[in-house]
């Protein structure tokens, strides 16, 4: 510590160690919080088509078209250790060929400070609802769930599921009309 550089260096190193400690305290203050909250999803239009999946096998696979409503209030989830929420809606169902299918249909980023009261009506899925076969037509129990991935300043990146989901059935006949 006898020189100017030595003192400046020691001080900067100590300040960074303190910063690491403060960051850890920030993490500790939020790690046990419960980030679940209710959300309601409803489907409006549900149709299924049988068309070739050129991105995969070129065989005719089932493609679902779903429009839905989403309503939830995520305002209270934000705190000093949440920078943004990554919302996504997954469709989950079981088919004879797969025990568990999970398809992401829609997502949205909500930054801290933005409006976190979500009230969407009759929105289209952002991503294709492909089945890897013919499992969608006439399926009785497909479940839509909203989940969010919390992006913090420091700490874990938890995936939290909303309380509440919506189950619906696909029609028994393929649609040939344009959707």
């Amino acid at each position, binding site marked *: 510590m006898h020189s100017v550089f030595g003192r400046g260096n020691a*001080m900067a190193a100590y300040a960074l160690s303190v*910063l690491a400690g*403060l960051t850890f305290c920030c993490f500790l203050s939020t790690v046990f919080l419960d980030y679940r909250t209710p959300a309601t999803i409803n489907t409006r239009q549900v149709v299924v088509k049988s068309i070739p999946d050129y991105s995969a096998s070129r065989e005719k696979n089932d493609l679902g078209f779903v429009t839905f409503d989403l309503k939830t209030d995520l305002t209270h989830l934000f705190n000093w250790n949440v920078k943004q929420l990554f919302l996504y809606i997954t469709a989950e169902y079981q088919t004879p060929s797969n025990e568990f299918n999970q398809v992401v249909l829609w997502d949205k980023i909500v930054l801290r400070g933005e409006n976190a009261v979500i009230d969407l009506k009759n929105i289209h899925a952002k991503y294709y609802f492909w089945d890897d076969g013919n499992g969608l037509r006439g399926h009785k129990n497909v479940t839509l769930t909203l989940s969010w991935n919390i992006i913090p*300043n420091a700490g874990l990146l938890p995936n939290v599921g909303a309380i509440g989901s919506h189950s619906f059935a696909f029609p028994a006949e393929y649609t040939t009309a344009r959707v």
Partner: protein
Amino acid sequence: MNHYAMKEYRSWNLDYDGQGRSEKISRLIITLFGVVGLVWGYIIQQFSETVYVLFAGFFLAACLTVPPWPMYRRKPLPWQKPRPAPREEGSETQSPKTKKKK
């Protein structure tokens, strides 16, 4: 580095007691600002404010303890006077030798 520059450089140094005190003071200031910043950031739920308060403490501590203020130079050690070189009066050969001993 000639003799004059050497002396100039050494004038930035603290004495032993001052080194200890400067480190103690800087750590105290940074820790204090860190704790206050953490509480403040928690109250307003903004971690960036915590970081800014900590940086403010760092700059305050830097201003108070990095420059060789007189308060850190009050107890110089009573070094003994350098002994004269044993032999050879030539100043050309003498000066590098004494420098090395320092």
